[in-house]
């Protein structure tokens, strides 16, 4: 399958998850995308999957306390100043589940894009997507940078624990990414990037199968909007 067709399919699944209203339908899309992500090597997929699941879990936990919908309370809590009565209703739980699964589906779609697609071919096919594809390629580099900072600290006898401890690494990680970006830009210019008259290696032909995938992607979006 051409990367362009694969991107269309992933984007369609994510869009369908956002458009669908039924919990079961969103769950099926999220599970399907999760299964796709499992094709990536375990050590690489862990970062993406854990990040997505933690974010979706947090959304599921917080939503019932923020939303105020429904008339079938499951639990009634104390009255909190400003927020009023804290309670959890059946409708709030359902809404939280749908929203969490939507977020998970979008996260898994991005993970599948980052982990499984041939970004080089995508760059070639969609020129305007070059910055996005380059940024995606920087993700593993950022992971390595973060691990390197932690290792350098451990090499000095300093253990970093918890989210708060790791938060101190955000600033050096950002600085590191900026520095790396500048160096990469310099190297790209030295290699002729931006020059007029660019050519490219011959592209693989667009096949009937790719057209079918794009048609299926469109159908998935329509189904998500109309029936799911």
């Amino acid at each position, binding site marked *: 399958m051409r990367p362009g067709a694969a991107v269309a399919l992933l984007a369609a699944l994510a869009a369908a998850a956002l458009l669908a209203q039924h919990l079961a339908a969103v769950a099926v899309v999220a599970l399907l995308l999760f299964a796709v992500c499992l094709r990536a090597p375990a050590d690489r997929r862990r970062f993406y999957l854990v990040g997505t699941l933690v974010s979706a879990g947090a959304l599921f936990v917080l939503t019932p306390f923020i939303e105020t919908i429904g008339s079938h309370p499951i639990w009634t809590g104390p009255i909190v100043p400003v927020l009023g009565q804290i309670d959890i209703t059946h409708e709030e739980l359902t809404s939280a589940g749908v929203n969490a699964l939507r977020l998970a589906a979008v996260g898994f779609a991005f993970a599948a894009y980052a982990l499984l697609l041939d970004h080089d071919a995508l760059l070639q096919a969609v020129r305007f997507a070059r910055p996005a594809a380059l940024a995606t390629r920087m993700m593993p580099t950022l992971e390595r940078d973060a691990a390197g900072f932690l*290792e350098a*600290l451990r090499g000095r006898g300093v253990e970093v624990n918890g989210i708060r401890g790791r938060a101190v690494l955000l600033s050096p990680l950002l600085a590191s990414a900026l520095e790396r970006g500048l160096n990469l830009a310099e190297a790209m210019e030295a290699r002729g990037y931006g020059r007029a008259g660019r*050519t490219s290696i011959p592209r693989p032909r667009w096949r009937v199968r790719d057209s079918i995938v794009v048609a299926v992607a469109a159908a998935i979006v329509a189904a998500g909007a109309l029936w799911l």
Partner: protein
Amino acid sequence: MAVARADRLTFTYPDADTPALCDVSLELEPGEVVAVLGPSGSGKSTLLRAFAGLVPHFHGGRFEGRVEIAGLDTRSVRPSELAGTVASVFQDPEEQIVLSRVIREVAFGLENIGTASDEILVRAHEALAAVGSAHLADRAVAELSGGELQRVCLASAVALRPKLLLLDEPTSQLDPAAADAFLEHVVGLGIAVLVSDHRLQRILEHADRVLFLEAGRVRLDAAVPAAEDWLGQNRPIWLGGSGNGRAEPDRGESMCRLEGVRFAYSAGLPVVDGVDLELRRGEIVALGGANGTGKTTIAKLAAGLLKPDAGTAELRGRAAMLLQDPSRYCIRERADEEVAIGVRGDRRRALGALAALGLAGMESRHPRDLSTGERERLALASVLVIDPDVLVLDEPTRGVDPQRKAELAKLLRAGSEHRATLVVTHDEEFVRVVADRSITLGLEALLV
């Protein structure tokens, strides 16, 4: 006719007080290999960037004089327009790789310069074969070792069939055999090459001419035999030391012992298996071996950063390890605060460590504002300040000039009786100067 020419080139970076290059004149003939030597900060990288047109186009600054590449004035032609006539390989391969597959990475430059579509893959495969890396064509760049990445970068440059090849510390991550092979490939290309490298003996074997820079000025421009004479008389430290001059060290108690150690990073094959190593207080042990033999992994096991999957690793006292990449020591926003991390913010000790590494007066500087050489020393200060019982250093001489290397050896020897020291390095000259004992992975241990 000269391929490249610099005529009275003077260049000052933006916000700098003094010029990085001062009145430099130089000509390169086709097929000539010129080694650019000089201390850290002497202007070697700036000179290479001037020949690539990156100075002044990418960096800005004040540019005087003239640089011509194949008759093109670099002031009026952008670096991207020079690509193909000139090709560069920078020091850190990770920071010049754009794409994720090797063959596409090599093809990237060819696409940019407008090579006919049906020729691109042919030339990319030829270039990979020319640097002995044809087998890497379909690999993902993320899977490659540092040495393999450097060869891919060279292939990317060679594929352009340039008239001038610029190499900035191209062998810094390669073991001696791989570095020799790399330079032989370069010389065999038959094009003009300007190469900067701190490992002098190796580079002199392959160069025709030597350019020695100091404070941005050319101190020497001579053929290799004359350059060796000049260095022997004026800069003898550049021609290497003659051993560490120490008697057999007084080996104390065992501080670190690895027995039958096995370690694998994931479910795959172990990186090291059945490794035995003992480090005693008072000795400096050098660990060498080819790329990919597990030197860094053993170093991390010795420092307690990794736990073995099998076998035993015993560590007595406090261990500290210096990683290869000095940019890992840029967490805080001041140099003294960075060094103080390992001693719970003890600023007095941090200042002492900075002074010992020649960084007095730079306490308030941001670590990222320091030069590469200064960053190397900051990283070392961050580790030495701990005064560890077991000190592990991974490639501490990468990018370090001979003068600094000699100072580092002196520093390590000065405190060595109080600790056990393990130095992982490809640098044979440094091993000869600093180590009491040398171990080459895969070969029988050898006493130096």
